[in-house]
């Protein structure tokens, strides 16, 4: 089997390798089952895995997760780790929606507490959590000094204002703020786009979902995470809004010129990059850090808005609701991490573009409460099926720089999905299986319908069989708002 004439070797039930040839510095490794590999035939994402392998300073492998698809430069689902001393950083390895990610909350509620109230809850969430095209106005537009403060502090900016607690920061990847965020590396245009979008969901595949824990696979890890069968959870999926999109756009131009200046031979222009330690690399790292922090503040604010809304809609006290943050993960980001490589500690800039950090037990970056079982890995599925909480493993540290998949991955294009939804009411179909959905965009439900996505059970199963991120709990949707 081949990708654009390349050899594709099967290493195991779930791992495939493209040997390093024709300028590739390392092999490509793809996590997928045989059916996924067949479906990728003719898709350019395998070629994109090879292209990433050409970049200077790449360590080990150019990796792709089972939800991979064709992206911009890097494939979506791609992971690339670059040595900080001789490697590069690339905006195409992070994507436009910097720190798009997922936040999971637990409650003390059970399904019976929501009986007959789900429609009202979802309607209130749709009206109180700004979502959809150009959504804004969750809080007053920020002044430039206040926005700068947010860009450095991340989620702590919101906590300082009473929107959450210090415990939330402990349960957020990178404590909700990347160090080294530099507001002076950010353009005026990004400031303009970002000033009034904090606390907004956006549109597309972003969502806020009320769920129920319908199965626990790993009781020990689930108990550590505070997940119990029958309990209601809330999942939030969104990113850095217009602020992050603008940072990416600005730095694609900067990196395009930098790649020429540093004589970096690019197999694809979209992989524009600069050495991690060059002025351009540092500037992007500073600006990308700001966007990542914006996203963490955004999800912290949305958590607060959700709590307020649920208290009002259900007429209960904060104690009765008992909303707690399980974890918040980024799945579009580049972070500097230390990994063990053949017995030596190596500092690497790990790009995860549509991939989730999945650190194993013992890592200092994992909150103390979870350190024995590994980091929670949050994998949203489609709005009619399920999402999963998995856990990071030592095997993930060995094989994938502590990374796993980020979702089910699309199987239908938006256009195909809209065609297939013609004459159907996705809202009614989901209501029939017990899911109340509401959206702002007129085509969103059709574009995001369950059959537009791969089977999340299969995707998660690949990562489990590979030993990367075994299942902890399955979360079934009850109510969904989409932008």
């Amino acid at each position, binding site marked *: 089997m081949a990708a654009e004439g390349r050899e594709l070797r099967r290493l195991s039930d779930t791992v495939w390798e493209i040997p390093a040839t024709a300028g590739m510095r390392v092999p490509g490794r793809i996590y997928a089952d045989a059916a996924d590999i067949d479906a990728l035939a003719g*898709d350019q994402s395998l070629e994109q895995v090879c292209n990433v392998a050409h970049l200077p300073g790449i360590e080990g492998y150019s990796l792709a997760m089972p939800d991979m*698809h*064709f*992206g*911009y*430069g890097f494939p*979506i689902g791609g992971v690339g780790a670059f040595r900080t001393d001789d490697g590069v950083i690339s905006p195409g390895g992070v994507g*436009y*929606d910097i720190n798009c990610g997922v936040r999971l909350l637990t409650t003390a509620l059970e399904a019976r507490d929501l009986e007959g109230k789900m429609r009202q809850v979802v309607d209130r969430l749709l009206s109180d959590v700004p979502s*959809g*095209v*150009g*959504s804004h106005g969750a809080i007053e537009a920020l002044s430039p000094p206040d926005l700068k403060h947010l860009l450095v502090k991340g989620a702590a900016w919101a906590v300082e204002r009473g929107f959450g607690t210090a415990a939330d920061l402990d349960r957020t990847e990178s404590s909700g703020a990347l160090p080294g965020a530099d507001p002076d590396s950010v353009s005026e*245009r990004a400031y*303009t*786009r970002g000033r009034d979008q904090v606390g907004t969901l*956006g*549109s*597309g595949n972003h969502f806020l979902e009320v769920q129920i824990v319908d199965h626990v696979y790993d009781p020990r890890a689930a108990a550590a995470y505070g997940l119990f069968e029958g309990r209601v959870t809330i999942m939030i999926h969104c990113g850095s809004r*217009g602020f992050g*999109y*603008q940072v*990416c*756009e600005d730095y*694609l131009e900067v990196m395009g010129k930098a790649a020429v200046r540093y004589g970096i031979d690019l197999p694809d*222009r*979209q992989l524009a990059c600069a050495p991690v330690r060059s002025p351009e690399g540092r500037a992007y790292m500073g600006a990308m850090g700001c966007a990542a922090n914006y996203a963490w503040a955004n999800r912290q604010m949305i958590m607060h808005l959700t709590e307020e809304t649920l208290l009002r809609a259900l007429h209960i006290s904060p104690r009765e609701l008992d909303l707690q943050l399980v974890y918040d993960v980024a799945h579009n980001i580049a972070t500097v991490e230390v990994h063990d490589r053949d017995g030596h500690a190596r500092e690497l800039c790990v790009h995860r573009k549509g991939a989730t950090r999945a650190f194993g037990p013992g890592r200092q970056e994992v909150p103390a409460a979870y350190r024995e079982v590994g980091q929670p890995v949050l994998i949203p599925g489609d709005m009619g099926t399920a999402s999963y909480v998995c856990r990071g493993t030592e095997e993930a540290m060995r094989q994938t720089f502590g990374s796993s998949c980020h979702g089910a991955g*699309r*199987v239908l*294009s*938006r*256009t*195909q999905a809209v065609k297939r939804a013609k004459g159907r009411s996705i809202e009614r179909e989901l209501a029939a299986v017990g899911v109340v959905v509401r959206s*702002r*965009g*007129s*085509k*969103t439900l059709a*574009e995001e319908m369950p059959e537009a996505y791969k089977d999340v059970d299969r995707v998660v199963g690949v990562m489990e069989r590979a030993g990367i991120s075994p299942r902890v709990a399955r979360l079934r949707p009850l109510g969904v708002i989409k*932008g």
Partner: protein
Amino acid sequence: MSDQSRRWADRGAGDCYRELDHPADLWLEVQGDSLSSLAENALFALFDTMVSTEDVATDGTAELSGVGAEPAEALRSLLAEALFLFDTQRFAAAGAKVTAEMLGETGETRLRATLWGETLRRDRHRLKTEVKAVTHHLLRVVDEGGKGWRATLILDV
């Protein structure tokens, strides 16, 4: 120019672009008789992705331009400016007029656009999909001689 002729809806703009299959984003193919009309139609495609343009009035105007070494980059730059206007001023367009010129000193292409539209109102306008960016990915602008101009571009959504 009369209000009627300003509007894309009154000029049968609906057929000027189509969506190609892309696994996650919007891959658009746009046609035009000239580079100017191609840019006008690409602006329509962008706004038609985000909002139902037939509900948008044409009382307001905005001036934009995009410059690039090649027509493709000039078009991307113009569309990125329009997206910035939409995202920051909430200005939705219902029509546009574009002029294309080659800059003598540099040989660059400049596209200058006048947009007609109004400020977006969530209670009046039907919203569709948020566009994150007008990407460089698979960006092409081709002069097909007698058959007019054709562009392909990907909107990150």
